């Protein structure tokens, strides 16, 4: 198997289980569990095929605007603004080398901003829309491509 590309290996496993094994599974629970496992395997395969591309697209689309998040909340939540500034900086610094870490920092920054908006009443109407654009972009990029 070492000669086989990981995505192709998963495709082989997936096809064998779906077409060869699943039709022979009589127990309802076992069949449901196998179908669930196959859905996960199929999506891992798609992720392997596309690599971190989706993640990097989210970061490159979100990071330029994220600079303004801290400024938008600083008047009502100065401590939160400082935390957001640091998180966005950390996201930017790791975007190329560790996109998974960068994404987590970015989402953490968005979460702090949402808390400030609803708890402290941030008066910038554009911030809520900007944050929701980013969270939508991120959730869309991570939603499974295959739902079977």
């Amino acid at each position, binding site marked *: 198997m070492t000669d086989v590309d990981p995505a192709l290996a998963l495709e082989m496993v997936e096809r064998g289980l779906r077409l060869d094994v699943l039709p022979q599974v009589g*127990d*309802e*629970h076992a069949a*449901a*569990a*196998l179908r*669930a*496992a196959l*859905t*996960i395997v199929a*999506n891992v395969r798609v992720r392997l095929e596309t690599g971190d591309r989706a993640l990097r697209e989210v970061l490159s689309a979100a990071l330029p605007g994220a600079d303004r998040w801290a400024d938008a909340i600083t008047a009502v939540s100065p401590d939160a603004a400082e935390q957001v500034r640091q998180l966005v900086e950390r996201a930017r610094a790791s975007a190329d080398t560790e996109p998974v870490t960068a994404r*987590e920092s970015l*989402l*953490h920054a*968005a*979460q702090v*901003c*949402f*808390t400030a*908006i*609803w*708890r402290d009443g941030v008066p910038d109407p554009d911030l*809520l829309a900007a*944050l*929701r654009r980013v*969270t*939508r972009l991120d*959730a*869309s990029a*991570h*939603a*499974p491509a295959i*739902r079977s």
Partner: protein
Amino acid sequence: MSPPGPASLRARAENLGPYLATRIGGDASVTHVSLASQGMSATTLLVDLADGRRIVVRARGAVRTSAYDAEPDEVQFHVLRAVEQARVPAPPALFYEPDPEVLGVPFLATGRLPGSAVVPWTREGRAFLTEVGGGPAGEQLLDILVAIHSVPPHHDDLTHVFGPPPGSVSVAVTRLQETIGKNAAAPEPILTDALGWLEANLPECSDPTLVHGDFRAGNLLFEHDRISGVLDWEFAHLGDPARDLAWLMARSNRTSEELACDMIPMSEVLERYRKAGGREIHPAAIRFWDVFMLVETVGIWLGSTATWRAGELNDVRVARWTYTLPRLRLMVLDALEGATR
């Protein structure tokens, strides 16, 4: 530890005869056991007895859905007893067995209702619901919901499991915040946004009622063109009746833009509910509960994921739920943006 699987439960149920004789009397020798359904929160068995009776056994599953201290099946047992006196076609409660030694997990036993369930997301299911929704079942639907909401909230059985009715909807939001805070393993900005919006938009509910909590076509039994039963009371609680109406109208419970649960016109639901004797429901309350229930669903999934991570659960279906959480977060965001538009 994961609860016993369906095969093990069936095997144990086949030997329940002597036990059942002490609980419900008569010749309770078990002649046949079949699997009715296997959900995440319960496995349901149909148990046929020698004297011709058939009882329904609902055995606790791996995923906990109740926010109350009592066992979900114990909650259901008391709720079913409370609705018996109302005009609600619900399974007659026989008993609740808390001792896990009997079947492997605590379980609820009920009588069987006539009729059969419909799978709403199949083409045949949708066609059936649309047809009967335009006839007697559609006329019954909101009468039944009003009957559920008319059960006295201070009924002894309800007080036993729920305590006094909550004074405000904020109690439910606080409970939801705690669930998500306890189970989230990573930043959850969409849920933080939604919880903030929910807190800022609490509907007024000074007069809580019994709420079914999962009132939709998939939890109804139909006999010909009439509704013969309301099942799955595991989410029942005391709270805002608008919640049941919001779920009846929710996007995830219909395939058509026009028909709630593919049965009755969306534009007529609140008016029909009022004409059936229900209270006036403000559309803002419907928007609130629409967002709330999606966030609650994410909360349940996050809780299951945490249980899985802790090594207390091995059901692969939960792993699949975890994998599809981003899609559910998108649904929360859609509802949130729809509500604030």
